[in-house]
């Protein structure tokens, strides 16, 4: 007998169960077992307790989930209060994960939320493998790349590419917003495209050419960037603390002076903050839409009571409402979810250091790669002693270090420790780049 609203979904048969959809993940079995799994067994991890995370926690608690954990490293700031509704003025300065978990436990007592204060990268594979599903609402690409690689890595495949232990396929439902636009997507490791497959769709942070900033400033943004990138390091020994009103005021004053020297108008404190902190506008409404779409997918994935989003929903709310659902394709040579070996063709005289710097740019955008072959370390970042020992290799030509067609294993802090990609180095015949 269906007594609550979600019971109608969990206990009654439907022509549109998971198995009927474009991305079928299992066969729906309406009844008490399904309900019991959702409420008693299913463990959900929420990554991020900010604008999206607060909404996600509320939506999960009111969708029948009772075993929820949340991880976030941030503390509460005043500028969070226009949308992060689990926080009040009195909570400013406290860890977001803790306050959010307390609030949910208080308002929806049947839902138990455990808080983890810290970085996504602080937790290991054992931690993540305990969950049935992960719902992420992060504001930075780096943490999402790492989390994605962790979850894809958990779904280990055999030589034929089949997942060895299906219980380790942990779906990741990811949301993101910017102003009136946002997206919700479903990632099923090894089955759908992963976050890394779509890395190209995240544009790099907006920057201004240094020569414009220094020589021909025209906009208030140019003056602010000058204060930040040129004047600050000249006068100060330490890095800018973008959360310090004193530092921001200093930048604002310096930028204002420069602007008045060049007759440029429009340097304001608000604009200074926007440029220096790369602030992305955020509103309650978009966060609500995207988070709820994500939790709706979590609910359906865990109960199989309806179809699954295949795989990407884009939402734009500024000019009317425009939304678009499409299947984000897998990238054949994705360094995370494909097991393909990338071939790098280069001159035999190219140095190891040059190769390392190539890896940090498009398309791989690694952060601090370490390289090794099956029988030798080429360049390692850690520990310090090994870094020092392998550093001289950076200046050596590749031909002095590896044979033609050798396979090099690359690891990088953007991915968890045991996720590596393989490069095959082919020396070009004569002098190609």
């Amino acid at each position, binding site marked *: 007998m269906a007594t609550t609203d979600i019971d109608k979904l969990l206990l*009654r048969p439907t022509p*549109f169960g998971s198995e009927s959809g474009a991305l079928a993940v299992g066969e729906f079995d309406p009844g008490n077992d399904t309900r019991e799994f959702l409420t008693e067994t299913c463990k959900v991890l929420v990554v991020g307790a900010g604008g999206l995370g607060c909404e996600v926690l509320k939506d999960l608690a009111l969708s029948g989930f009772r075993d929820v954990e949340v991880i976030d490293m941030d503390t509460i700031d005043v500028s969070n209060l226009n949308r992060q509704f689990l926080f009040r003025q009195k909570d400013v300065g406290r860890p977001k994960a803790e306050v959010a978990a307390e609030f949910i436990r208080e308002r*929806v007592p049947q839902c138990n939320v455990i808080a983890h204060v810290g970085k996504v990268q602080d937790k290991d594979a054992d931690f993540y493998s305990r969950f049935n599903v992960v719902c992420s609402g992060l504001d930075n690409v780096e943490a999402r790349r790492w989390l994605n690689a962790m979850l894809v890595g958990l779904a280990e495949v055999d030589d034929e590419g089949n997942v060895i232990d299906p219980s380790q396929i942990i779906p990741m439902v990811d949301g993101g917003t910017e102003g009136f636009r946002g997206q919700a997507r479903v990632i099923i490791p090894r089955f759908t495209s992963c976050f890394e497959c779509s890395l190209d769709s995240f544009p790099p942070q907006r920057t201004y050419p240094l020569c414009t900033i220094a020589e021909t400033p025209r906009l208030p943004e140019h003056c602010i960037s000058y204060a930040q990138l040129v004047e600050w390091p000249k006068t100060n020994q330490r890095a800018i603390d973008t*959360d310090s009103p004193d530092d921001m005021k200093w930048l604002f004053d310096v930028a204002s002076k420069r602007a008045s020297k060049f007759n440029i108008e429009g340097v304001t404190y608000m604009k200074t903050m926007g440029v220096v902190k790369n602030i992305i*506008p955020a509103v309650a409404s978009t966060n609500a*839409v*995207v988070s709820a779409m994500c939790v709706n997918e979590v609910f359906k994935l865990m109960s199989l009571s309806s179809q699954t989003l*295949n795989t990407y929903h884009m939402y734009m709310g500024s000019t009317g409402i425009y*939304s678009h659902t499409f299947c984000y394709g897998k990238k054949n040579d994705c360094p995370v979810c494909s097991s393909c070996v990338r071939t790098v063709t280069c001159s035999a005289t190219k140095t190891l250091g040059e190769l390392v710097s190539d890896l940090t740019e498009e398309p791989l955008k690694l952060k601090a790669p370490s390289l090794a072959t099956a029988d030798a370390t080429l360049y390692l970042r850690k520990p310090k002693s090994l870094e020092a020992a392998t550093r001289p290799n950076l200046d050596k030509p590749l031909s002095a270090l590896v044979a033609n067609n050798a396979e090099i294993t690359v690891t990088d802090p953007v991915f968890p420790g045991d996720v590596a990609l393989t490069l095959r180095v082919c020396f070009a015949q004569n002098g190609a780049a």
Partner: protein
Amino acid sequence: MATDNKYDRQLRLWGAQGQKALSEAHVLLLGAGPAGTETLKNLVLPGVGRFTVVDGEKVEERDTGNNFFVRKSDVGRPRAAATAELLAELNPDVRGAHRVARVSDLVSKEPQFIRQHSLVVAAQVDPQTLQQLGELCWAANLPLVVCRTYGLLGSVRLQIRSLDIVESKSENKLWDLRLREPFPELDRMTDALDLDSLDDHAHAHVPWVLLLAKAAKNWRAQHNGASPSTRDEKEEFRKLIAAGARQLASNVPELNFEEAAREAHRAWADPRELPYEAQQAFDHARDVAKKARRGSDASASGDAPPSVEQLCLRAVDAFRTENNGLPPLSGPIPDMHADTNSFVALQRLYRDKALSDLTAVQVHFSTLIKDAFSRAPSQEDLQLLSLVCKHVGDVRHVSTKSLADELVAPNLAEVAFEGLMEIDEPKLKPQAPVCWYAGLRAVDRFYVKQGRYPGLDESSLAADASLLADELRAFVQEAGAAEAMNEALADAHAQELSRFGAAELHAVASVVGGVASQEAVKVIARQYEPVDHTYVFNGIAGVGGVVAV
């Protein structure tokens, strides 16, 4: 913390102007279920001025399972009181109130109470009450946002009779540069520019606006005053621009000439031609004025006084009549490769001209304000006028179909499958939002006939599905649905609607509340473009789309 303004992140979207409008609004919520309270939550957080919750129910156990703004301890209390209390607690800047009353009673007995508010949100209101409410709001030109959740389906319907939007903030930025018909000051600056006399550094830093102005003037001199118009001419013009670049010793190409060639189309852009939607807004304001004049001739017209927005549009219109169709100059120019001094000088030139145009528009505006309200324009009025003049191409007039028309004469013939790229994928066709719009209409027909929603009981699931299937067929036939839609609709839709049994799922209510609050903010701030008609969220396949029936 580097700011003490908790609204910082949203001010970057709608500015102080939008925030002020929001803080002066009084929103009425009819129906305190999850879709209603979620909508209000997203208005209280960003700082709406006041809200009033109207609801006639008592909090039940069921509410604690899907509504975040009731607690276990509230069971038995009036739902209006419990939710208003927890909503108000979200933001100390907001004043909240509630009334314990049945929504249907209020709508039929106290229209004057409803009319006191600046916007009405109706959540989970039954079809008959909604029809009455729609008529009441239409007559009072009161914006109405209708929220609905039904199982995995949600919808948000906006009804607006007439609203002028000052800043639609369309994504493609229009720059009003007047290169085709330069104003005298720009013409003088162009004449003063002698490219040949410049050293290489200066030559590579002349703003492209001036390069284009110069080239366009030369072109007109050689073509009897005409601008490039054919494809060939435009191509030739572009080549002429590129050919003006110098081969520098450094071998670095001149960026300003590259930019000029790329922006060449601006040299023949007609400043009289406004975007279609903007022109419509001006035409509408003129029509209203005409009608009002006729009305006053016939004496005692009961019409409301014109809005200040409309008077702004009419003042601009008068300016255009006086200036051979040219609108007041907008002012801002885009960033471009240039040295600081020439860029700042150019920026000033455009701004000064914009200010002098604005002064001329103000003369008309003062007369219009005096005629309408027998007073001088306030500081606020003038601010609005300056916004209108700055964004002439960005004004919009919004008017949706009325709920009454949608109910009486639905038309599905023209409605496309929206929101799906791979609509050819057979599994997705039945999931098109328009199919589920039809499904929800079938549910309403069922409700009107049976006095209850389908699928409330396990025992009637199959029988209700079959009745619903009849209603669905009848509805799409009456609405003249396209063949593709008839093919996509199946008995499965009716079975699914019966299975939902009027369930209100929190996640779906939260999607609806997000969309509804977004539309309310746009309407209150008079910024961006509100949705025309109905947004449908299909939570089965994760698909959304706008349906205008």
